[in-house]
């Protein structure tokens, strides 16, 4: 509710404006949040770099060159090299794809589970709702990182055999991270459902004979999207941190896949001779998470029409 505080003591209620579409209004509000706008530009630049970069910077990620070990940034290697003389720029660009892919996929997973559970709990009253909320509370009080580590420890080998090392670990990490991030979304959706399902337009749909499924999918769900989008944005950042943490602990992707966390893990024992090795992937993680968080903040302002800006 902090959002209801006027932006400044002198702010007057907004003057009547011409009618604009919801999306344009949201974009205008988003643009008012300078840091969010700046973050969006920065994040898009980074995404572009990560996807187009490897086509321009054609150095292989596993080109071993022992004559150029642990070199600081230079013209040949703009971000320096690691202990095997591999080019860090190429590795960081490659790792960015994985980190972003994990973040987005885990967010998708979290939203899917969260919206489903929240919607079921929100539309059905009584024991189903109570049971699902008990489950949500239980998941909220689980120690997430230890369990993440435990699951990865137990299932990694099996999935490697089934899907191959890369896809197996990717699937596992996405499923597990997504499986631990759905609870806030479920709570949000349930709370929204509680107020929305009593609204007149839903009642009108019900009176016209709309089935429960149609009421939910056509009428209620679209109106819960605002907070869900915000939660999803934050989830991307959280998933990126979770993946980097796993890789940093040496329990994420295999060593030949240089995700940002993995590069940090390899670099941490060379902090005294090659600090650049750890700095660049660290800064990459930090900037991605920071910009995503700022964008989430901006979206929160933009998608809440009650907020006076």
């Amino acid at each position: 509710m902090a959002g209801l505080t006027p932006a400044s003591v002198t702010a007057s209620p907004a003057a009547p404006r011409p009618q604009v579409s919801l999306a344009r209004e949201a974009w205008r509000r988003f643009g008012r949040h300078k840091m969010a706008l700046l973050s969006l530009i920065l994040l898009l630049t980074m995404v572009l770099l990560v996807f187009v970069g490897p086509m321009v910077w054609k150095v292989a990620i596993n080109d071993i060159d022992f004559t150029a070990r642990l070199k600081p940034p230079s013209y040949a290697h703009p971000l320096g090299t690691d202990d095997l003389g591999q080019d860090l720029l190429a590795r960081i660009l490659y790792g960015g794809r994985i980190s972003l892919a994990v973040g987005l996929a885990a967010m998708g997973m979290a939203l899917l589970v969260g919206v489903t559970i929240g919607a079921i709990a929100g539309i059905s009253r009584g024991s189903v709702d109570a049971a699902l909320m008990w489950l949500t509370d239980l998941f909220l009080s689980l120690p997430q990182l230890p369990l993440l580590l435990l699951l990865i420890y137990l299932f990694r080998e099996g999935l490697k055999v089934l899907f191959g090392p890369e896809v197996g670990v990717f699937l596992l990490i996405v499923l597990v991270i997504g499986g631990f991030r759905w609870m806030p979304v479920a709570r949000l959706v349930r709370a929204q459902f509680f107020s929305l399902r009593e609204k007149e337009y839903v009642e009108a749909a019900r009176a016209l004979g709309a089935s429960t499924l149609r009421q939910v999918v056509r009428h209620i769900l679209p109106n819960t999207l605002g907070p869900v989008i915000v939660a999803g944005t934050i989830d991307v950042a959280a998933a990126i941190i979770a993946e980097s943490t796993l890789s940093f602990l040496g329990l994420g992707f295999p060593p030949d896949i240089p995700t940002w966390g993995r590069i940090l893990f390899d670099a941490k024992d060379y902090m005294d001779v090659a600090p650049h090795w750890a700095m660049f992937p660290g800064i990459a993680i930090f900037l991605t998470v920071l910009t995503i968080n700022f964008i989430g903040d901006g979206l929160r302002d933009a998608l809440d029409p009650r907020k006076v800006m």
Partner: protein
Amino acid sequence: MGSYIFRRLLIALPSLLGISVVLFTVLALAPGDPFEELATNPNVPAEVRLLLRAKFGLDDPIWQRYFRWLSAMVQGDWGFSFISRVDVDKLILQRVPVTLAVIGASQILALLIALPVGIYSAAKPYSWFDRIASTLAFIGFSLPTFFTGLLLIYLFSITLGWLPFVYSSDISATGWQWWWEQLRQSIMPVLVLGLFQAASWTRYVRSAMLDVIRLDYVTTARSKGLKERVVVMKHVVRNALIPVVTLVAMQMPAVFGGAIVTEQIFRIPGIGSLLIDAILRNDTPVIMAVTFVFACLVIFFNLIADLLYGWLDPRISYR
């Protein structure tokens, strides 16, 4: 208050059981077998292995195995570490105090930063102080603990050479010297965890304060002619802290996660680094037990938060 504590304990028990079910299911679903080591060992004949399986009841239905595991856990029979050949409960008991000390100190640091900064920010919203504090909180909140740890090591251990970057559990010095060394090696881990927590708590405190500061009773207090300081400290803060306590409790799982990372970076001999070592060496009994201990700690802190909640908000205790 007594019955309130009792009721809260009754609520905590099912969640503990729920977590134990989750843990056990995960273990039971996992591919692989605790006797794999024996199966691949050519010196152990197949019939011995089958006998052992029968003796430990591995072929019983899953619910029987669950209850046997649970009763063993409750009786303190946590198994035997494959690697260090010590009882798991002894191993964990050695390590828990270090973890709790580091977490405790960092939480106190976080509170010492978050409370004043959050309160002052909310008392003067959108002032310069508030803007800077909010931006810093955002940055702190987005810096993963493993990267802050490395940055601090680079700054204080490598560049400046002020602090040791490896935590040593047996310092030879005694007396004041011992405390001094202990302090020096604890500074960085506590800073890493504390600053991260402080960043998110500052945001909570600020927004909770802003929720309360607009309420009518605060206006009443102001119009009585009370000083702003008294209004904020006596009327707003106490009520604003109530939701903060819940949010802090909800953060506990994340705090323990951060502690694992921090212990790993600074090689602190706590249960977090024990867990990582056990995972890297396939020491299943230790892994299970440490995960369970983490779960218990999370629930324990939730319980404390509930009790604090009841103390801060007297309406709750008598409901």
